[in-house]
């Protein structure tokens, strides 16, 4: 058979057209609105029938469409438009020619669908059953729920991570920082070029307390030492237990040897007081070695720790219960 296939032309009643395309418009050849779909009528708030299309609608894209002839040239293309009465609710449209120079325009909500549905209190009945608008709303809602669950999960994991990190950096007996935390803080101070003082403290006679009075007494002494060190340092200082009876204190911003000696002297005095545990007196004292980051051209963690350690042993050799500053 020759020629193009026959396209059936058919008539459709206004109610049926309204069900298939609840947001359609029919325009007469002069550009007046002759029929309006029920959902579009609902959101227009004023009566559209009889109005000039270009008076009621704002055509945003394509630009330069101002009359019926322009519109006919754009037949079959996607249109972006809005009701002049509700310019913030964007609409999408498709205009197609009707017999006798009229036009049929079908509209839908674009991405502003949820706003439009809420604002105009639309229901399922306002959409064609074949329209996926309701599914889009379902997806938005389910997405919000899933995102909420994920955000909750992230919050809980973040909390658990903070707790785990805190535990990983804390000495369980004394609640002071541990060796790992001290290493991190020390590297951080050096990397950021912060001047700081470093104290290495070792208890004297601690082994005797452990051996004669038992580990419970030793633990009591260590807890007491931790309290003293916390009490004699500032909020931003790092006090770490780095070994059995060894402690390191990092004092950011404190490089004045006189002040460091003052702090060390207070610590030594307080730790020289007898500590009572279950009626028994535990006698310990403290030896301290110190150094400051400003004594080096390029301070290195291992170098500073070993220099403080050397100063500590000088204190021990000089008779214990005293503090020494490392002199290069």
């Amino acid at each position: 058979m020759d020629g193009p296939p026959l396209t059936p032309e058919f008539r459709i009643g206004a109610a049926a057209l309204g069900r298939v395309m609840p947001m359609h418009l029919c325009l007469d050849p002069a550009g007046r609105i002759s029929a309006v779909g029920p959902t579009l009528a609902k959101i227009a708030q004023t009566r559209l029938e009889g109005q000039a299309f270009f008076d009621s609608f704002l055509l945003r894209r394509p630009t330069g469409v101002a009359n019926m002839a322009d519109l006919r040239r754009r037949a079959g293309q996607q249109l972006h438009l809005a009701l002049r009465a509700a310019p913030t609710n964007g609409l999408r449209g498709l205009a197609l020619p009707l017999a006798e120079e009229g036009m049929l325009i079908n509209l839908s909500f674009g991405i502003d669908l949820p706003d439009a549905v809420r604002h105009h209190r639309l229901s399922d009945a306002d959409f064609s059953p074949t329209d996926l608008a309701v599914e889009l709303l379902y997806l938005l809602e389910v997405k919000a729920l899933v995102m909420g669950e994920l955000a909750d999960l992230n919050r809980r994991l973040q909390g658990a991570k903070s707790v785990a990190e805190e535990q990983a950096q804390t000495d369980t007996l004394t609640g002071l920082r541990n060796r790992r935390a001290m290493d991190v803080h020390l590297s951080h101070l050096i990397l950021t070029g912060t001047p700081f003082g470093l104290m290495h403290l070792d208890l004297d006679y601690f082994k005797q307390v452990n051996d004669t009075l038992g580990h419970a007494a030793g633990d009591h002494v260590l807890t007491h030492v931790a309290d003293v060190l916390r009490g004699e340092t500032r909020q931003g200082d790092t006090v770490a237990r780095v070994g059995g009876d060894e402690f390191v204190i990092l004092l950011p911003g404190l490089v004045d040897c006189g002040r460091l000696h003052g702090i060390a002297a207070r610590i030594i005095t307080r730790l020289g007081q007898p500590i009572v545990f279950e009626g028994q007196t535990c006698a310990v004292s403290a030896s301290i070695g110190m150094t400051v980051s400003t004594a080096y051209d390029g301070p290195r963690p291992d170098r500073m720790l070993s220099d403080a350690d050397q100063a500590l042993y000088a204190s021990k050799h000089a008779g214990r219960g005293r503090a020494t500053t490392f002199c290069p």
Partner: protein
Amino acid sequence: MHGLMNRAIQGFLRDVYGPDLWSGVARTAGLGPDGFEAMLHYDDALTDAVLRAATAALGRARETILEDIGTWLVSSQAGQPLRRLLRFGGVSFTDFLYSLEDLPGRGRLALPDLGLPALELQEPQAGVYDLTSRGLPGFGHVMVGVLRGMADDYGALVLLDHAGADGATETVRIQLLAADFAEGRRFELVGGG
């Protein structure tokens, strides 16, 4: 099984019977003190252990508990989001029943790994529906509860009957006595603000 389903069991037991009962059940089942996470997966054996512990603690049959979980899922305050999602299935209770076959697909749209069992709806005679689920033992009982809650929501009067299981295949018979028996709850397409 997906954490969301496990969380439903946890939420139901804690909400209805209190935190003490739930901690006892969790301990017996060997579940950690934090319970289930909604967005993680768990071994089916753990879910089974929780249900066994709940059955023993409450002295009630597993089927009854599963059915109550279903009702709680859509009727309780905690279940409001799910109730809304199910209402997207249709304007009337009949539409809703027809939409049930899409439920696993809708679940996948939300969470690709949710793993809802396949559902099939037959209408052996007018007003009588058979809903068959395949693959998740006990799901039929949960659906009896869900359907009871949703029928209330739509204002429909139904008779529900778990018609038994054949392996992992379970059938629920739904007799729709009156589609508009009572004023249902209103459903706004866009919830919240």
